[in-house]
């Protein structure tokens, strides 16, 4: 896998390849499979992503009862009101909640890059597909873009909240979705890298502070901000706005910020919102239930 944006951009330029194709060819070489086999596999992942959205059950609640039914609440509100966010963005928000709630309710989802952040990519991608009438094949290419980006972050930093805080999960998902959205809107490899740099910069330092240690509060709603940050970062990059700090350096900074985070802020459920009086009370109540 590629370990830097610099490398992937160099390959794109030297061989006149689009970003997604550079990632695809690299995977074929490394995994020793044909382009067709790799593409089919990636397409099945995209279809599973769409399914995770379609299979949302508005009646489900998580075992802790802290999460569930909010996506439906937002959808009904969106139906009857002129939302501040507007049509496209509000649909992105609803989808992010749908998929993230499904995950908390132990339904089948696609970890992208993690389960806690599984709502970000489908929220952005499925909504773009719907708005622009794109084929599943084009969406599959966008997934290659996203996976190439995630691979770079995994190699240089981390995708685990326990290591890097929420910036490693929602932040990474947001960067992956931003890059994919830039591709789908006709942006080149430089715009893709810039959108990632901005998406990661905006969420840098985000801590992992799950109440009662569950992937529910605040994780589900952070999928919404991850998705919204992705589309705004994508639009910034598509407008030609550059990140002053190159994407690779942003990822390196994210790694170092993760190392500076106290363990209480890295998925141990001991800091941030988890440590608030209400967070503690919810945790206590759940423990007593068991």
């Amino acid at each position: 896998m590629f370990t830097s944006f610099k490398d992937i951009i160099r390959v794109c330029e030297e061989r006149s390849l689009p970003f997604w194709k550079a990632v695809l060819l690299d995977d074929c070489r490394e995994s020793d499979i044909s382009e067709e086999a790799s593409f089919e596999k990636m397409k099945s992942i995209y279809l599973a992503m769409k399914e995770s959205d379609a299979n949302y059950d508005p009646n489900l609640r998580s075992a802790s009862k802290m999460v569930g039914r909010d996506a439906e609440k937002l959808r009904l509100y969106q139906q009857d009101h002129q939302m501040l966010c507007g049509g496209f963005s509000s649909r992105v928000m609803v989808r992010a909640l749908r998929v993230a709630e499904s995950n908390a309710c132990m339904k089948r989802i696609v970890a992208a890059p993690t389960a806690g952040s599984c709502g970000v990519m489908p929220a952005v991608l499925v909504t773009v597909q719907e708005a622009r009438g794109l084929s599943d094949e084009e969406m599959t290419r966008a997934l290659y873009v996203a996976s190439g980006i995630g691979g770079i972050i995994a190699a240089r930093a981390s995708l685990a909240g326990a290591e890097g805080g929420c910036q490693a999960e929602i932040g990474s998902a947001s960067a992956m979705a931003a890059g994919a959205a830039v591709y789908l809107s006709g942006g080149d490899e430089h715009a893709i890298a810039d959108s990632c740099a901005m998406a990661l910069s905006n969420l840098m330092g985000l801590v992992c502070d799950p109440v009662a240690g569950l992937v529910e509060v605040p994780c589900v709603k952070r999928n919404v901000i991850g998705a919204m940050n992705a589309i705004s970062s994508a639009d910034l990059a598509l407008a030609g706005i550059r990140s002053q700090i190159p994407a690779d350096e942003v990822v390196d900074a994210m790694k170092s910020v993760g190392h500076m985070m106290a363990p209480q802020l890295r998925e141990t459920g001991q800091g941030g919102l988890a440590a608030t009086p209400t967070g503690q009370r919810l945790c206590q109540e759940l423990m007593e239930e068991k």
Partner: protein
Amino acid sequence: MNIFDIVGPVMVGPSSSHTAGAVKIGNVCRKLFGEEIRAAEIYLHGSFAATGKGHGTDRALVAGLLGLSVDDERIPDSFALAGEQGMDVSFHTISLGEDAHPNSAKIIMHGEEGRSMEAVGASLGGGRIVIDEIDGLRVNFSGEFPTVIIHNVDQPGHVAEVTSMLQHKSINIATMQLYRTGRGGHAVMVIECDQEVPRQSLEWLSKLEGVEKVGYYSPN
């Protein structure tokens, strides 16, 4: 790791590191043990200990030991399933030291005839894992490749025997690691391969003089 670990896996929630990764650690341990597990002592470290219960890590590890896959919707019910299949499970908290990954578990498995095996695994995020220790010896493999684990007496020639066998079967080595307790003591070879290793070749290896045990893990 490849791109399908980044976008993927398709899995049952809620956590790729604490649920899917835990299932995989259980899967790899089950295959390494190579026989039905009658009892398992599971020790949770770090974040696994702090938030494991909330993420279903305990149920996921047991699901993995039972051989369920990460997208199997029976994962939440694994304790009941273990009961039905006659597998006793106990949970404990442990500190594996500062160097251990926060998402680590140590699993001691016991078989039908008193054989037991101990392994330490860590979940690295996104469902990827690493096995750090087998029977007290440090190792390092991902469970993504067919992997041969050979316990032998530390004496000249064993590496050559194993690599010649692999060459003879046209099997390419992806990574290879050697560990030993001390000169002439107990040694372990961990070899990740690009192709599957045939059963009869593994049996042949296990009969060689000085070879104490041959373990094999296939991701497929």
